[in-house]
């Protein structure tokens, strides 16, 4: 698969867990080819998902609310 060359490229095969749309990335900190801190934003439903310590947290937002109720 040609499009996966670096750790950063893998974000291309990620999508929004809720609506499966593409994600946009806002990079806050990167090292070499890796995004350490940033935000993934769904192009459609606009949900935000954090990347911290190089790990995207793509647990759906809706579920968290369900749990809190």
């Amino acid at each position: 698969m040609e499009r996966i060359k670096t750790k950063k490229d893998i974000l291309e095969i990620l999508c929004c867990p809720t609506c499966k749309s593409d994600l946009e990335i806002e990079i806050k900190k990167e090292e070499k080819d890796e995004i350490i801190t940033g935000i993934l934003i769904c192009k459609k439903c606009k949900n935000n998902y954090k990347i911290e310590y190089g790990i995207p947290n793509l647990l759906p937002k809706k579920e968290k609310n369900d749990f809190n109720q």
Partner: protein
Amino acid sequence: MNSYNLLKSEKTWNAIAKSFDITRKKPWNQCIDFINDLSKEDIVADFACGNGRHLIPAAKHCKYVIGLDISGKLIEIVQKKLNNEKIRNVTLIHSDIVNNPTESESVDAAMYIAALHNIQGRINRINSLKEIRRTLKNDGVALISVWSRWQDKYRMHFLKKWFFQIGNSEFGDIDILWRQHGLNIPRFYHLYSKKEFQKDLKDANLKIIEINNTKLISKKHPDNYFAIVKK
């Protein structure tokens, strides 16, 4: 989706993560065989990668691996191992399989090992299998394993339940306590019969290439079923 109770599941696995890692060092042969049959150019997804005991061999053999897990603590454990071994061709993602954040037709192979049986509610389990199917490329392949309901350890429990028609939960559901290292934490399981496993795979529109009974610990009756499936 409430019945599936995502965050309860995350809390459970976070609580036992360290202990789980200590007791789950050795990869299963069935998984190693599956990985060895993959191409070196393959992109692999390990759905519910746990402590990474199958993710790491996959990363050493294949081009790139994405490892997903519901437990942030288990993800941290895997990240440490990757750093120690200087393995770079892995991305870890904190997520769950029912709400799979992987694009359609993006991976050559998927592993979904000993995790389907932790999802509560048949609809959720089938949805998770459909999500595996969606993610696979058209010629992609997946290895899926579940615990057996009729293994030696739980056989009597389910025979009694079946005979006396006890309880109103789904037949096969059981809370299994994690009792290592002084912990006493219940984990939800839906233990499978082989027939039910085959049915769920078919209902998710997955084609069964091979399905095997294995005895990893059990002496008499199989304790796990492994299926190799395609689209």
